[in-house]
C-alpha cells in the first residue's frame, strides 16, 4: 500500500469542486463514432486536471481551467474497455441510475421523476459520458479548444447543461450550500476501527477513491484487466490480484442528478404557513433545511473538537445533534440532519464497559428512538454539484405572482466508491425514507417526492418538534425538487483515461 494517494493520477474533481472557476458547462453526450471518440480522448488527455495544486507541483494552468471526464457503463463498453471489468464494476453502475424499477422505487424516482420522463439519461436518451468544462472566465474559448475538430464527429450531444454561480455560495433556494463535506484522508493516515465511538469527519480515502482501504478497512470492489489486455503497461499492477492491472485505482463513481428547484413554490409555501410574516417564514425555512440562509447551524457548537473539522470549518461544522435528541432545536427531519445525522457507531453517551455492554445488546437508551440511525461514516459523499439559473431572492419569490418560467436548480454531482452504500443509502434511507429515525408520513422537506405509500395517511408532512409537547405539523408540503435527468458514471484515474484512449478497436 502506498504511503499517500498519488494526486497526479486522480481527476481534480475529487479534490475540489472548482468553485473559483465561476463558469462551467457540462455536456452529456453519446458516442456516435468510436474511432473519432477515442481520437478526441487522445487529443484532450493533456488537458484533464489532476488533483495536484500549484504548490504540490501541479500544472499552473490547472488553476484557471478544468476538464473532467466521466463515463457510463455503455460508454466504456463502446470504447472497448475489456468485458472482464464487469466483474469489478459495481452492479448499480452497470445497471445505471434509471436502469431498474427497484432502484427507481428506492431512490424515489417515480411518478413525474421516473426515468422515462427524464430529459437526458433515461432509457431513450442515455449518456455515454459527461464532459465537464470549467473556467475562471471566458468559458467559450476553452470549450472550443477542448471540443476541437473531432467533437461533432465523435459525439451527439444529448444535453448541454449550463451552470451559474450565485453570490455567497448559495444554492437556488437561497441557502448557503456546500458547507459540510467529509475530509478525505489523502495521506492514508486513518485506519478505520471496527467500532468508532466518536463522530468524525475525517474519512478514509477508500470511501471516495477505488484502490484504498475504506471505512471497513477493506478494498471496495473495483475493475481490473489482465496483463495482456494492457500490453502498453499503462496501468499499475492491481494490489491483491496477481496477474491483473488496476483500471479502478484512483478512480471513483460519479452520481449525476439534474434537479430543478421550484424556488417560488418553496418560499410561497413557507410564506403561507407563516401567515405572511417574513421572520416566521425565514425561520421555518431554516427549520426545514437545518441551517439559516446564512449557513448557521441550529444547534450550538460542541465544546469538543471533531476529527476532520479544521479551525476554518469550526463555526459551520463543529456540531452534532447530541444536545438535541428530540429535535426541538433542529427538527429530526430537517434536510441536513437527514443527510448527515452526525452520529458514530454507537449512541453518543456510550461510555464505560457496562454501558457499552448494555448498548450492544440494545438496552439503556434514554429514549426509544435513540439508536435508530448510526454509523454515518459508511454513508458519506463528496458533493461537487453546481447550481443553474439566476438568483431569485426569497423576498422576491414570495412576491412573484406567476412563475417566471426561468429554470433554476442544481446539477447535483456526488462522488463515492460504493454507490449503493453511500449515495443510494443517503438518498433512500435518510432523505426519501418516510420512516427515517422513527418519523413517519414525511420525507426530506426539500427533496421529498410526496408520493403516497400504501398504509400511510400521507407522506407530505413535516414535523417541527416542540419542547412544550405537541409538535408543529406542517401539512401538505408540495414537491419542490424534481429530477430531470442524470446517471451513474465512472470518473477514471488519469492513467485509466490514457488506457481508454489507447484501446484499439480489436482489443
Amino acid at each position, binding site marked *: 500500500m502506498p504511503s499517500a494517494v498519488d494526486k497526479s493520477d486522480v481527476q481534480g474533481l475529487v479534490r475540489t469542486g472548482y468553485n473559483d472557476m465561476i463558469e462551467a458547462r457540462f455536456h452529456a453526450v453519446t458516442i456516435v463514432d468510436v474511432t473519432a471518440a477515442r481520437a478526441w480522448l487522445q487529443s484532450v488527455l493533456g488537458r484533464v486536471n489532476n488533483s495536484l495544486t500549484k504548490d504540490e507541483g501541479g500544472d499552473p494552468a490547472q488553476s484557471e481551467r478544468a476538464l473532467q471526464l466521466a463515463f457510463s457503463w455503455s460508454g466504456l463498453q463502446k470504447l472497448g474497455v475489456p468485458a472482464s471489468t464487469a466483474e469489478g464494476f459495481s452492479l448499480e453502475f452497470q445497471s445505471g441510475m434509471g436502469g431498474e424499477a427497484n432502484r427507481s422505487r428506492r431512490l424515489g424516482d417515480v411518478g413525474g421523476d421516473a426515468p422515462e420522463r427524464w430529459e437526458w439519461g433515461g432509457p431513450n436518451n442515455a449518456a455515454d459520458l459527461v464532459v465537464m468544462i470549467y473556467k475562471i472566465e471566458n468559458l467559450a474559448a476553452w470549450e472550443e479548444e477542448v471540443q476541437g475538430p473531432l467533437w461533432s464527429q465523435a459525439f451527439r450531444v444529448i444535453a448541454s447543461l449550463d451552470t451559474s454561480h450565485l453570490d455567497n455560495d448559495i444554492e437556488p433556494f437561497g441557502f448557503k450550500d456546500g458547507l459540510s463535506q467529509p475530509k478525505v484522508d489523502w495521506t492514508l493516515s486513518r485506519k478505520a476501527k471496527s467500532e468508532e465511538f466518536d463522530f468524525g469527519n475525517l474519512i478514509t480515502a477508500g470511501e471516495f477513491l477505488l484502490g484504498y482501504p475504506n471505512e*471497513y478497512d477493506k478494498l471496495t470492489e473495483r475493475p481490473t484487466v489482465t496483463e495482456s489486455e494492457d500490453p502498453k503497461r499503462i496501468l499499475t499492477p492491481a494490489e491483491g490480484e496477481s496477474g491483473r492491472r488496476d483500471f479502478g485505482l484512483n478512480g471513483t463513481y460519479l452520481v449525476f442528478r439534474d434537479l430543478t428547484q421550484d424556488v417560488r413554490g418553496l418560499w410561497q409555501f413557507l410564506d403561507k404557513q407563516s401567515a405572511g410574516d417574513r421572520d416566521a417564514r425565514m425561520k421555518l425555512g431554516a427549520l426545514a433545511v437545518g441551517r439559516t440562509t446564512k449557513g448557521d447551524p441550529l444547534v450550538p457548537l460542541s465544546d469538543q473538537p471533531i476529527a476532520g473539522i479544521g479551525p476554518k470549518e469550526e463555526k459551520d461544522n463543529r456540531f452534532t445533534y447530541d444536545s438535541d435528541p428530540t429535535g426541538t432545536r433542529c427538527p429530526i427531519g430537517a434536510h441536513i440532519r437527514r443527510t448527515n445525522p452526525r452520529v458514530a457507531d454507537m449512541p453518543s453517551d456510550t461510555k464505560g464497559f457496562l454501558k457499552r455492554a448494555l448498548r450492544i445488546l440494545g438496552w439503556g437508551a434514554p429514549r426509544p428512538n435513540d439508536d435508530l440511525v448510526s454509523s454515518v461514516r459508511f454513508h458519506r459523499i463528496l458533493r461537487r454539484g453546481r447550481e443553474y439559473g439566476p438568483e431569485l431572492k426569497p423576498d422576491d419569490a414570495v412576491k412573484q405572482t406567476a412563475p417566471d418560467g426561468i429554470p433554476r436548480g442544481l446539477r447535483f454531482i456526488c462522488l463515492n466508491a460504493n454507490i449503493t452504500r453511500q449515495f443510494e443509502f443517503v438518498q433512500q434511507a435518510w432523505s426519501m425514507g418516510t420512516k427515517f429515525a422513527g418519523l413517519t408520513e414525511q420525507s426530506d422537506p426539500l427533496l421529498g417526492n410526496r408520493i403516497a405509500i400504501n398504509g400511510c395517511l400521507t407522506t407530505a408532512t413535516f414535523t417541527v418538534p416542540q419542547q412544550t409537547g405537541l409538535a408543529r405539523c406542517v401539512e401538505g408540503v408540495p414537491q419542490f425538487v424534481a429530477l430531470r435527468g442524470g446517471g451513474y458514471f465512472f470518473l477514471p484515474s488519469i492513467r485509466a483515461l490514457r488506457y481508454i484512449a489507447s484501446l484499439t478497436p480489436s482489443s
Partner: protein
Amino acid sequence: MTPQGNLMVLAPVTAGRESELRTLLASMNREPGVVDPDNALVPFRRLERVHFARFVILDDRTLDDITIYGLPRVDYPLTVAFIADFDGPQNSFIDDLVRVAGSGLSRIFACCGFTGGDLQSWMNQHRVKPAANYVNTVGRTMLQVREEAALRDFICTYLRGAGAPVVAKMSPSQIHQSLRELVKSSGIKLTPPAPTPIGWRISQLINFITGLLFIPLAIVLLPILIPLGIIYLIILRKHETTDAEVDRRAAPDIQRRLAEIEDHDVTNQFSALGTLKPGWFRLLTISLALTVINWIARHIFTHGHLGRVQTIHFARWIYLNDKKRLYFASNYDGSLDSYMDDFINKVGFGLNLVFSSGIGYPRTNYLVFDGAKDEQKFKRYIRRHQLPTEVWYDAHPGRTAVDLARNTRIREGLERSSMSDAKTREWLQLF
C-alpha cells in the same frame, strides 16, 4: 396476553409440477412482489390473526459449493414452504386456514403430494419446527396493531384538523384529558388483552428455568469445561483458518428477480438458504448457537429489539434435510441494503455466530469477529443465498416495527388517567 405462534409447512414439489405451482403462486400477486390480499387461493385479508405470511420455493442455487470440501454435490428435492406468523395457537390457526383457504391450499399443495382428503392432517404431517424463532414484540396481536393504528391515525387527523385550534391554548395535561374524552366518545375500540394462556406461561417458565440452570451447572463443571473450551477453540481456529470462502456475485438474472419483488412496501421479506459446513464440529457449533439464540429471543429480546436492531418483525431459522441445510426467513423494515448495513454494523457478531457455519461464509475469527465486517463479501454471500419469495403478505403495510411500538405507547399514555407533566409532554411528542 395472546402470544404469537408460527407455522411452516414444507413439502417436496412433485416432479413435473413445478411450473404449475409457480403459475398458481404468481396468480396470487397483483404484480411481482405485490400480493393481492383478496386473491382467490389464499385470501390473506380474511385471516385476521396473520401478521405475515409467505410462499417460497426452496431452490438452492449454491449446491455446488460443497465440492470445495471434496464432497459430491447433493441434489435435494425441490421443496415449497408456506410460512405464517399469527396470533394464538397453531392448531386453531390451521383450522382457520382450512376454513378460509382450504380449496386454494388444496390446489397449491396438490403440486406437492397432497392427493386430497384431510388437508389439516396433511399440513400437520408436513409441519416443521424452527430451530430458533424471533418475535419483535411478544403478545402484540394483529387486533392490537389494527386498533392502535386506527387510534393513532384518528388522533393525528384530529390534531392536524378540527382539533388544532381547540388544543392550541391548552396545557399538556389538558390536551391529554381532552384526547381521552374525545377517544372515549368516538367509539374507537381498544380491546383489553386476553388472559395469557396458562399452558403457555408454564412452558415459558420451565424453558426459562431450564436455561438458567445451565449457569450453575456450567460453574460446577468448570474444571471440565475449561479444557473442553480450549480444545473447542483449537479446533475452531483450525476450521477458521482452513475453511474456504465462496466469494461470487449472484447471477444477474436472479439479482434482477430479487430486486423486482423488493421495496414495494416500507417492510420487506427476506429468505435465504444454504448448506451447512460438513462435519460434527460445525453442526455442534450451530446447534449451540441456535439453541442459545432461541432461548434469548424467547425470554430476553421480547420487546422491540433484537440486540440493537429494531427493524425485524419476525425471523426464524429452520434446519432442513437432517440438519444438512439451514433456511432463514425474516420480515424487516427498510431495503435489503440498509438491512444488511444495520446487521453488519450493529449485530455482526450474532450473524457470524450462526452463518459462519454455512459453506463459503466470509472468514470469521473466534466465531464472532470479522466475517460480516468484510462488508462486500458478506453482501455478496447474502445475495447469493437469497431466494425470491414467490408470495408475501404483510397485514400492516406502511407501518414499521417502530411505528407499531409508537402506537402502543400512544395507547398506553391515553389509557393513563394522569401523568406527570414531563411524561405528558413526552407522550404528546409521539404525535
